[in-house]
């Protein structure tokens, strides 16, 4: 078989995440002293591997150390470290989205059969519905966090995370689901504007309120926020609000007559902006739109000539210049739009809205490229990078940024992408399957939280891969089983996902536990589940020993419970039959008792060490008034005794010679009696 050469490799130190123990074990940079003081570090991994215990250890044996070797306080400390736990604030979100995730996997599997994930089978609107449920959960979380009262740094950062996740998710939804209906060509533009205004709202509602409050008062002219506000309205396509505002501003005393006139004009044009609808043909819409655009062109030219005409007061009319800018933006002039845009999203939105209103999603990459060039890409946040990668259809890069935003995002979005059938291109780029990789990481983070073990296991199982199942099984075998209820829940999970090794290990562990605590019936049941006949046998032997020691047969209820589960085991049979024998004897049904005793001996279910006791049990029946054993039966009994005595001592247990001779005499007498009958 071919052998691989050993490889040299590069350590990517900048990817390394470092945690320093506080208080530290020794001062920074003084590792050589550390070794001279005979100290090193050792560790032990927690069985669930989510924790590690760390301690200082010694190198040299203690006898080699001088008495003067100092002992440090840090040496007496054991640190236990774990992965940062999921914050409790996320629990409702985790549970809600788990339900959506599970439902999504369910419908995909039900619909697709062997081609699970086929878009056509489930229908885009099915996926769209699921996608919307996810977004609802994100928005809900933002609301809940915002209502938290005085926001800590943590809350602020969480809000930002969820808003970012929503922005990313929403954009993916509109590109790959909403506008991707088969057979239909849907413009991305209205959806893009909706996305833009929902996720990056501008202008802010507080600004708007302040300005509305100041309208009609003296401070309008002094309100330096007004025109920037109006321009922002234009940029973001809030044409109705823009029109209202312009109409309210127009009568203001401070405005020149030209400005007032054009304010009203632009208001009218803004109201006339064509909106597409499903009923209108694209031809008709395009015609209307071109007319509208022309009117704006005319407006712009007219105002321009006023301003550049050099006549006063129009030449220095700031309001008029603002109106010019507004009209220029609305006619789709890239330079004007660029001047007003604070972000690349602003610019992209306005360009789409005002110069390419019927564009489809495939237009986005080229437009996005142009936008991004105008803005400092080096200052882009991770969110910006994720969005731009998405617009450019660079999906592998997109996923990497998603993961930097939050591990919840990369896990769920790669799953959605898989169901939309756009993940395959990423599979070629990554060394591992990205969906599996991110879901595994997410599942692991859930498993390290006490209350989320079921959710974690479910995620691992729903990955549907060998790696996921093997991690899940390893985990299931090591989950602490603090209570019977939890043990049952874990076993149910094992059944659901067919984790046979885990089930086996858990039953054995519980069996041993119950055995140690004297709950023998429960112990037998557990060992029965895994067909551990040896353990069942040993426990039965113990029950028999207890009976012999106390003289009281109290194991009846214990084994009844087990027998109900249908386990076939010689020892159990023996104990049951012996109990039955005992019952018959107690109520005086000696004939039945005798039959049972004989049956036990002849069917060989009795353990070798018990045979002597059984024969001794026969004595009262042999000597009783009633004839219980006929001659054949008596011969059988005698044969048993003979076999017993000819066997080497250890196998037959302790045989009391005195009792055996009483037995022999009793047999002889009974035999004689039986011949007379």
């Amino acid at each position, binding site marked *: *078989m071919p*052998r*691989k050469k*050993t*490889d040299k*490799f590069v*350590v990517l*130190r900048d*990817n*390394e*995440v470092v*945690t320093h123990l*506080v208080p530290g*074990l020794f001062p920074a940079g003084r*590792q050589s002293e550390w070794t001279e003081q005979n*100290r*090193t*570090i*050792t*560790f*032990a*991994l*927690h*069985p*669930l*591997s989510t*924790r*590690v*215990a*760390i301690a*200082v*250890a*010694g190198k040299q044996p*203690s*006898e080699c150390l001088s008495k003067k070797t100092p*002992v440090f306080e840090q*040496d*007496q*400390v*054991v*640190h*236990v*470290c*774990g*992965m940062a*736990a999921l914050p409790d604030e996320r629990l409702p979100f985790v549970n809600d989205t788990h339900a959506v995730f599970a439902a999504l996997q369910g419908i995909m599997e039900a619909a697709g059969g062997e081609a699970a994930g086929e878009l056509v089978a489930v229908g885009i609107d099915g996926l769209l519905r699921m996608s919307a449920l996810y977004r609802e959960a994100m928005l809900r979380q933002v609301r809940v966090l915002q209502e938290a009262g005085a926001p800590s740094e943590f809350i602020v950062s969480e809000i930002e995370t969820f808003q970012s996740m929503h922005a990313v998710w929403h954009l993916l939804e509109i590109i790959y689901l909403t506008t991707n209906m088969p057979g239909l060509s849907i413009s991305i533009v209205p959806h893009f504007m909706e996305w833009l205004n929902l996720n990056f709202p501008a202008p802010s509602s507080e600004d708007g309120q302040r300005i509305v409050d100041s309208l009609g008062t003296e401070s309008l002219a002094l309100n330096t926020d007004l025109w920037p506000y109006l321009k922002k309205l234009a940029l973001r396509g809030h044409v109705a609000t823009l029109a209202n505002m312009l109409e309210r501003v127009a009568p203001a005393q401070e405005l020149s007559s030209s400005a007032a006139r054009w304010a009203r004009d632009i208001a009218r044009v803004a109201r006339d902006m064509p909106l597409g609808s499903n009923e209108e043909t694209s031809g008709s819409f395009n015609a209307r739109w071109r007319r509208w655009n022309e009117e704006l062109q005319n407006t712009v030219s007219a105002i321009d000539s006023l301003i550049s005409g050099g006549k006063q007061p129009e030449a220095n009319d700031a309001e008029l210049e603002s109106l010019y800018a507004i009209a220029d933006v609305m006619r789709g002039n890239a330079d004007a739009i660029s001047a007003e845009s604070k972000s690349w999203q602003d610019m992209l939105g306005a360009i789409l809205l005002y110069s390419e209103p019927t564009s489809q999603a495939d237009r986005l990459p080229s437009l996005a490229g142009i936008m991004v060039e105008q803005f400092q890409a080096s200052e882009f946040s991770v969110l910006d990078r994720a969005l731009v990668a998405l617009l450019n259809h660079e999906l592998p890069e997109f996923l990497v940024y998603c993961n930097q935003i939050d591990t919840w995002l990369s896990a769920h979005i790669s799953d959605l992408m898989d169901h939309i059938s756009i993940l395959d291109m990423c599979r070629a780029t990554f060394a*591992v*399957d990205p969906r599996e*990789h991110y879901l595994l*990481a997410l599942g*692991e983070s859930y498993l390290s939280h006490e209350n989320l073990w079921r959710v974690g296991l479910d995620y691992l199982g729903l990955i549907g891969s060998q*790696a996921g199942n*093997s*991690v899940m099984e390893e*985990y299931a075998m090591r989950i*602490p*089983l603090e209570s019977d209820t939890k043990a049952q829940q874990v076993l149910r999970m094992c059944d659901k996902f067919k984790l046979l090794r885990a089930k086996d290990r858990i039953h054995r*562990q519980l069996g*041993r536990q119950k055995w*140690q605590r004297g709950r023998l019936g429960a112990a037998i049941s557990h060992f029965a589940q895994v067909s551990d006949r040896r353990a069942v046998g040993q426990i039965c032997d113990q029950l028999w020993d207890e009976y012999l020691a106390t003289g009281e047969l109290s194991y009846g209820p214990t084994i009844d419970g087990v027998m109900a589960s249908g386990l076939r085991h010689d020892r159990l049979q023996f104990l049951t039959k012996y109990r039955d024998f005992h019952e018959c004897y107690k109520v005086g049904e000696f004939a039945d008792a005798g039959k049972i005793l004989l049956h036990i001996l002849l069917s060989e279910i009795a353990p070798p060490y018990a045979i002597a006791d059984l024969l001794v049990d026969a004595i009262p029946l042999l000597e009783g008034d009633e004839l219980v054993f006929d001659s054949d039966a008596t011969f059988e009994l005698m044969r048993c005794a003979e076999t017993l005595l000819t066997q080497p001592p250890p196998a037959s247990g302790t045989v009391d010679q005195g009792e055996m001779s009483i037995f022999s005499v009793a047999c002889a007498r009974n035999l004689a009696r039986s011949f007379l009958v």
Partner: protein
Amino acid sequence: MDIDASEGSSVAAWQCVDVIDNAHKRTVRSVAFEPTQGRTLATASFDGTTAIWEKGDETYECVATLEGHDNEAKCVAWAASGQLLATCGRDKSVWIWESNGEGDFDCVSVLMEHTQDVKMVLWHPKQELLVSFSYDDTIRVWREDDDDWVSAATITGHKSTVWGGAFSPQGDYLASVSDDRTVRVWTQHTAGNAAAAGSDDGFYYRPDTTYKCVAVVPDSVHTRAIYSVSWASSPPTSGDAGGSSTALADLGYLATGCGDNSLRVFGVARQAEESTSGDLDVVLVCTQENAHGLSDINCVQWNPVYPGWLATSGDDGIIRIWHLDAMT
């Protein structure tokens, strides 16, 4: 194969979640989590005692102190059932303790057969069988016989201190590492039946059993003493229909930590079917030199749950977590 020292693409960091103060009056030597529940931790110390800690609601509390060793306790290990504990020490002894289910431990056996200090003890993953590794160059196998523990076998072959060992994931082979710079792999050898070697019972003691060495990594590979070894199954390769990488390592991967500052990973495989010796191939698949800078690596352990992840600790005072990437 490739190892890269990163936490993977998730940027989650490790935080200290618990601190146990005043564990011992002198340096802690070894720590171990109880394997079935993970709520209990044992710490063995230079002062000869072993402390048992249980995780309560808030923090760890010392529930028992096991005394007995004359001087430093070198290693503590839990059996897979979680009910037995073994410690070993410089006083050449191996002690076996049993949990009575209520947080107390009874000493079951004190085993004095080694002639020099005992460096490490290790339980079999499936059976109640204990192995100890010693400065006297031998490995001893211990088994229970009628409520007491006895020496079942002595494995010789190493030419110097045996620092430690690891069982294969199924428990049918034992790897040991030594001051003599070799790694040796052992399995049971039932006289007269070579085919039975490595069969179901694996390493389990039987009256006619001896142990034989089925693989040696020669002393040319590691240039200093080897302090630690860990053995794990091969990670399942996603979507791979059992390609050449799995054939190369069908018994998993061995990782060693060495005094020459390097971390090494070996693939272990059964030899081709023509061979009836039961020998194994142990092939070096990658090396990380100076894994802890210019410091000895004193401990390596594969992650028991996530295949392909490995933790190492070194004299530089750092614990590193590694991921083994199978290159396609």
